């Protein structure tokens, strides 16, 4: 996994609340193998018409075509568990989404793919979006080490992030390596557990 440390880049404002993962990646693209093709998938049906021509959508406008940060509203990424929603964001170039709340599964999927979901207050995300609308293309900084977002006006917003997840992102650590340290504990757990619930491991009738 690509580490995430500090990111300074263009932020795109997405004002709509409750952006579900069907919008980020329409279902018919789920079968696409992971790769650069996902860049076009992001918000596909809001960005392109039936002929494949661009529609008026924030991510089709300069400078937001080059955005690395999304500043959204509340409940970003609700709905389906599809990880392809994260692949679409990532291949488009997005490395951080700032929202006042996230769909749980989508937030987990972001962390597992080197994309940082940042939770700030409703007021903070609204105020940052207003700043971006007033000055499109202004740079913002997200510092995972310091756990701060610096908005275009220079305002600093602290955010909290789970310490283990922070470490994994900072170092680009893979979960499985961490899990394998517990192989012995798993063996002990399973010994007791199989004794307690043997029927779970029987063949069906």
């Amino acid at each position, binding site marked *: 996994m690509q580490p995430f440390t500090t990111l300074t880049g263009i932020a795109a404002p997405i004002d709509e609340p409750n952006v579900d993962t069907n*919008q980020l990646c329409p279902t018919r693209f789920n*079968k696409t193998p992971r790769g650069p093709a996902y860049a076009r998938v992001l918000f596909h049906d809001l960005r392109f018409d039936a002929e494949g021509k661009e529609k008026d959508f924030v991510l089709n406008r300069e400078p937001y075509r080059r955005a690395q940060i999304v500043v959204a509203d509340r409940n970003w990424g609700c709905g389906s568990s599809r990880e392809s929603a994260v692949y679409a964001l990532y291949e488009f170039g997005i490395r951080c989404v700032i929202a006042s709340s996230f769909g*749980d599964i989508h937030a987990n999927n972001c962390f597992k793919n080197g994309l940082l979901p940042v939770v700030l207050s409703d007021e903070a995300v609204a105020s940052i979006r207003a700043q971006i609308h007033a000055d499109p293309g202004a740079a913002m900084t997200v510092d995972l080490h310091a756990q701060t977002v610096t908005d275009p006006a220079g305002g600093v917003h602290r955010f909290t992030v789970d310490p*283990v997840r922070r470490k994994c992102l900072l170092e680009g650590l893979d979960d499985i390596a961490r899990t394998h340290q517990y192989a012995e504990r798993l063996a002990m757990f399973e010994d007791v557990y199989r004794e307690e619930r043997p029927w779970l491991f029987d063949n069906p009738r």
Partner: protein
Amino acid sequence: MTALTMFEKIWNRHVVADEDGEVLLYVDRALIHEGSSHAFDKLTEQGRRVARPHQVFAFTDHYVPTTGRDKGVEGIAVPEIRNMVKKLHAETAKHFVTLFGIDDPRQGILHIVPPEQGITQPGLLICGADSHTSTHGAFGALAFGIGASEMMHVMATQMIWQRKPKTLRVTVDGALARGVAAKDVILAIIGRIGIGGGAGHVIEYAGSTFAAMTMEARMTVCNMSIEAGARAGMMTPDQTTFAYMEGRPYAPHGEAWQRALALWKTLPSDAGAAFDKEAKLDAAQIAPMVTWGTNPEQTLPITGAIPDPRSADSEERRAEHAMALDYMGLAPGTGMEEIAIDRVFIGSCTNGRIEDLRAAAEVARLGRAKVPAWVVPGSRTVQAQAEREGLDRVFLAAGFEWRDPGCSLCTAINGDQLEPGERCASTSNRNFRGRQGTNGRTHLVSPAMAAAAAISGHLVDVRNLLS
């Protein structure tokens, strides 16, 4: 002794390790489907094997066609879709994972088959490659959906890293009126708490309304917990649960059944267990519900009218409502029963079980479909039982289509989809933009309400047809 919730009891029993609140949990069952190809790709990329193949169950549901199934996988016309099914068959064979394949007499949706087979049991921790895995919580299990990376991790280790969610108790008491179904209850709950209302929480459904429900009705409720933003939904296992499970192929038998019962009876939340949040509804107040917008919280009783965005309580809500109405092609003030529909879909992991089909058939008997109406059983087992009961003949006589099992129009990736602009009364679980096909319009309803819409040509209060 601290009083514990059912969720805490199950969580605690599955902890293998704890790193500063990031907890490594043991997974009893992993449920996957054709769309889990990304997880298999990651396994292959890293040269890993499935650690506990007997605890991973694979289902062909998302991509299988719902017609022409006599030719099996070779009968799938679209190569890309055929390859998804073939790939699952190949990957599961390679990793010795149990597969309910396209030709299996038990084939069906991953939230319908495991309960039928007894794979879903109280007290288990179940992870599924699909957000509606919350369905299995109806048995008193902790069950939730995960993405491809997490599923790859589960397959490689049989464990998952999680942070402990909070708990929300939703209490509904009282009897439901005739014509009001489990689907209406969960839509009313989502309408009340919102699609973000359960975020970061596991819901425990409590109260006499749920205690009186059948297992299938409970599954409908738990299924849509994710639509309230919740990580999972659960209900207390009781005699209804045990009676449903007894004798199923994967359920314990003989002496093991007695041992299992004793364990299951320790699961219910202790009296006085504390929940982080509470919500209450009165069953008597719940009418048949219909969604009018583009997310499941945008819902109203069938007796209502489309709200005016100008009456919303904030600028952003006004914009959100206006956008939803624009997409749905609806004007404020329109009565719900005035909304004409083009299509009807009865099926999905929410409402594709035998009781759902019985409820729809009861209404279908009263007339003839005025618009194309599909009935898609959730599994071969449901399909066979419906055919034994003659429900297929009821539907066919009323001009409905009787199809083969799968996710079908709910996920709209197997070729079944709405045409742009088409309006569908659907028993599925999501009315998001494009969910049932690009620019398709979806109104979520119960099976009886969907059948009522089919024979009326518009949304209609099923209670008036049944009286």
